[in-house]
């Protein structure tokens, strides 16, 4: 972030609100922050290449699209196996996110987290059972945490420019453990 110029910072802030639905969206975005269409396109291409932008596209609302159940499945994997197990889990189509996180002993023994979305809880549990069989995870202790209620869902934001405009800002960060 420190490496970004002022117009680039402004561009990030504007982009967090989403692209306009017009024929030349990058041109329109550019005029708001004092950059040409070409400069915006070059910025975006560079940011995508270096991973600052994970992906550029449609952000869906899971619940509204029928994915009513989301499970955070947490695993207590021996440290020497966690990387291999994480990789295997990450390859499964039903897994949307997979992260290693620290244990918080004695309260919390789990060090690997993954998310599974589905139409209902029963289907999510079926996905989980077949995933356990496919990945050979029968011996690894796990728990399934379903979400009961969504208390707050707003876009996470890092750029000060958006502070005064919370309603305009939607999900623009890749959120760990999101539902």
């Amino acid at each position, binding site marked *: 972030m420190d490496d970004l110029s002022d117009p680039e910072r402004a561009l990030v802030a504007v982009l967090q609100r*989403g692209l306009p639905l017009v*024929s*030349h969206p990058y041109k329109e975005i550019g005029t708001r922050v004092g950059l040409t269409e070409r400069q915006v396109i070059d910025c975006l291409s560079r940011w995508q290449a270096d991973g600052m932008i994970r992906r*550029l*596209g449609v952000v869906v609302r899971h619940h509204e699209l029928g994915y009513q159940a989301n499970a955070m499945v947490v695993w207590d994997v021996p440290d020497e196996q966690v990387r291999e197990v994480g990789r295997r889990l990450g390859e499964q189509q039903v897994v949307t996110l997979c992260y290693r996180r620290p244990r918080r002993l004695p309260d919390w023994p789990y060090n690997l987290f993954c998310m599974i979305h589905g139409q209902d809880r029963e289907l999510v549990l079926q996905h989980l059972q077949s995933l356990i069989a496919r990945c050979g995870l029968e011996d690894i202790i796990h728990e399934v945490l379903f979400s*009961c209620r*969504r*208390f707050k869902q707003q876009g996470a934001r890092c750029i000060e420019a958006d502070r005064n405009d919370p309603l305009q800002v*939607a999900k623009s*960060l890749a959120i760990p453990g999101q539902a």
Partner: protein
Amino acid sequence: MTENLSDSLALDATDRCIINTLQTGLPICERPYAAAAEQLGITEEGLLSRLSGLRDQGFISRLGPMFHAEKLGGGLTLAAMQVPDDAYEKVSTQVNAYTEVAHNYRRNHIFNMWFVLATETPEEIENVLVSIAEETGYPVFNMPKQEEFFVGLKLEI
């Protein structure tokens, strides 16, 4: 539940195709919607009008980049709390009042409150967590990402 979950929704095959294709990515070029529309076999105008409809109906929240928070210089973490049932409402109100709290989900576990914090700098994470613990009177467990194995963030519709 039907075989195809979107059968029960007001989405036709083209809508589904648009969502599935554009979750993967919108081209970065002068007329990205025209390029995407060509790939989908529809017109640019048709794509724009469908996207606007999908947004108005609440199926998509936005179109645009998903930033990598850490590379952007910000702080990001997942935190968990154990909150007694009779205090849950009050504590969730306190926690959600922080602008840094992006998502807050109740889950069926003794750790029943799970929220994501996003801050402008990594250093602020600790301050916010301490502040939440002090204000609510319950410990906050910080569970930052140590390694990432997959971020697909894509659902087949």
